[in-house]
């Protein structure tokens, strides 16, 4: 067991699987000798060689496209996009190819790839470095979209993503990269994909979140506990496919739900969760389903960044409002 940050957990998971499976190969910009701009791949090129930890030219569509070619050859490529702000040129390849190669060939060719990218705000990064657009990927049929919120979850989910026979977008909340450490047994044990994790049990209200916002949400839950509000907190973890049952089951018990995400509100993934409640959980709801989200604005430069992002305070306020219904 070792105390690891989320970043170190990603590194360990990559190393574990590269050692265990010759077919795992990494590619991306600056991931080799530099070990990635966040050091997620630190030391891996030294250990596994330049052929398996591949520094690519500066070209994201190429990275996504060649990852598909590698995966189609039976390798298990894990590509890194340096920041989510630079992921958009990959959407064409992901949507038009990766997510449908199996379908298009009726199973003849599959695409077991992972596309990793750090995402989200809160580290005072330059322009274009802080957005969260996971909802755009969640709309793409044939994909998985996985978001760890802690070191342990990063380790276990990344292993699962690499081993998954289909394409996975793996989004790492960069604000959590070095935020906390957890004891992790580097045993190669994966966590299940496609399920939500209930990270706090409660009876009064269900808070649903993912990624970095889990931490504000847990803080809010602590604060609200002191006020006598007992929150259940669900970490969605895999946003596509969505484990809607865990959420519905919880809301059936609590009768209330607030969804928290950092991404812009409109057509954010919170909408999908709320829509499921409106369709399948309506009769259990005592109160409106709140969404605490980023604004429908461009993510501002860092001086105003904190006003863009949902805060513990915002979450508490919405929960309190939600509790007022009876």
């Amino acid at each position, binding site marked *: 067991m070792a105390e690891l940050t989320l970043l170190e957990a990603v590194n360990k998971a990559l190393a574990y699987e590269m050692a265990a499976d010759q077919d795992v190969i990494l590619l991306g910009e600056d991931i080799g000798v530099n070990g990635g701009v966040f050091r997620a791949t630190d030391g891996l090129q030294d250990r596994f060689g330049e*052929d398996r930890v591949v520094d690519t030219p500066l*070209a994201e*569509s190429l990275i996504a496209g060649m*990852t598909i070619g590698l995966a189609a050859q039976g390798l298990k490529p894990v590509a890194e996009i340096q920041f989510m702000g630079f992921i958009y040129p990959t959407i064409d390849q992901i949507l038009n190819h990766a997510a449908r190669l199996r379908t298009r*060939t*009726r199973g003849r060719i599959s695409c077991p790839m992972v596309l990793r990218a750090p995402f989200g705000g809160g580290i005072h990064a330059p322009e274009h470095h802080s957005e969260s657009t996971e909802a755009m990927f969640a709309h793409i049929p044939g994909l998985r979209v996985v978001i760890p919120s802690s070191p342990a979850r990063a380790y276990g989910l990344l292993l699962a993503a690499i081993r998954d026979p289909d394409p996975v977008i793996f989004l790492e909340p960069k604000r959590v990269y070095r935020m906390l450490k957890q004891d992790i047994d580097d045993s190669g044990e994966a966590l299940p994909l496609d399920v939500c994790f209930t990270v706090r049990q409660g009876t009064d209200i269900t808070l649903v979140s993912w990624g970095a916002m889990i931490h504000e949400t847990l803080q809010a839950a602590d604060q609200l506990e002191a006020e006598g509000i007992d929150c259940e907190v669900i970490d969605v973890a895999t946003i596509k496919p969505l484990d809607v049952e865990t959420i519905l089951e919880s809301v059936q018990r609590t009768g209330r739900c607030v969804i928290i995400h950092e991404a812009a509100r409109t057509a954010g993934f919170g909408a999908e969760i709320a829509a499921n409640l409106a369709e399948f959980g309506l009769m259990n709801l005592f109160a409106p389903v709140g969404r605490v989200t980023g604004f429908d604005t461009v993510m501002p430069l860092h001086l105003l960044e904190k006003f863009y992002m949902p805060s513990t305070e915002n979450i508490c306020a919405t929960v309190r409002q939600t509790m007022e219904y009876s």
Partner: protein
Amino acid sequence: MTKVAVASFDIEFYQYLNPRGEILGDLPEFAKRAADLIPLYRDMIVTRIFDSKAVTLQRTGQMGTYASSAGQEASVVGLSRAMHKEDMLFPTYREHGAYLARGVTMTELFVYWGGNEEGMNFANACGDFPVCIPIATQVPHAVGAAYAFKLRGQPRVAVPVCGDGATSKGDFYEGINAAGVWNLPCVFAVINNQWAISQPRSRQSACQTMAQKAIAAGIPGEQVDGNDVIAVYDRFVKALNRARSGGGPTLIESITYRMSDHTTADDAGRYRNEQELIQQKALDPIDRLNTYLIEQSVWSEQQNQQLIEEVTAEVDAAANDYLNTPRRAPHTIFDCLYETLPKAYQSQAGRLTALGDV
């Protein structure tokens, strides 16, 4: 002032068989016995007859939109016959003849263009990529596959095919550039048929040749007469062998002509001069080889007729198989979405399963 030339480049054009069916200079080994060229001739005939059947099926409401390759037979046959079985093709939507040469069946192609994905599930152990419609997006796939070949030390080559229009897309360029960086076993085929739907070659790029795109990537580039199947085959064999033995990528521009409309949904009459088509017909790749073979007395008008009848029968039989292929049941759209359908989508699939075969 110092002004020094720090780099110099030439683009060469290759041709063996001129439009009149005459040989220019020495022939390569494989073409020395004229009779040995008959299989390539047959492939071109197959391609043309397949195309014309497909267009008929579409016109009669029995198939979907289709992109004919009429006029480009030497280019697609030459490059695909030059490939080894273990090499890998990444075609567009117009290289039917290349698929056929590599073991894909006519029925499969009809099934695909008939609106059924099953047609891309090649039964004959052909590992080629499926038809690629979003222009140039298959180029990075080929680069990835070539990287895998190199990593595993396999003597295989990836062959992405692009049109002249495709050379304007970022993916084309990102791909050739990366293949240069890693010296990958890739042969990039640019089938310059002079048109991208309504846009003539001159509106895609100010470059004199498409072959010189290679210079940007630091890889060899050359032009070949794409209506001369001997030249296409020969230049591809050389480039493929070089790539297979670690010599790195090549870009080959094959100059040919799209004799048909862009697809059955297009009307080239809106934008293309009839005169141009007539001129280009004089360069027809099939007539050219036919003339040469007859001239060499290894082929006759009668054999030609017989071949056409034989192939027509083969194509008609495949079309019949296609027309008799049962429709897939609606619920099969969930079959290959993931290896195992996630629980989240099972109820959706269930709704279609309930419909049964429709």
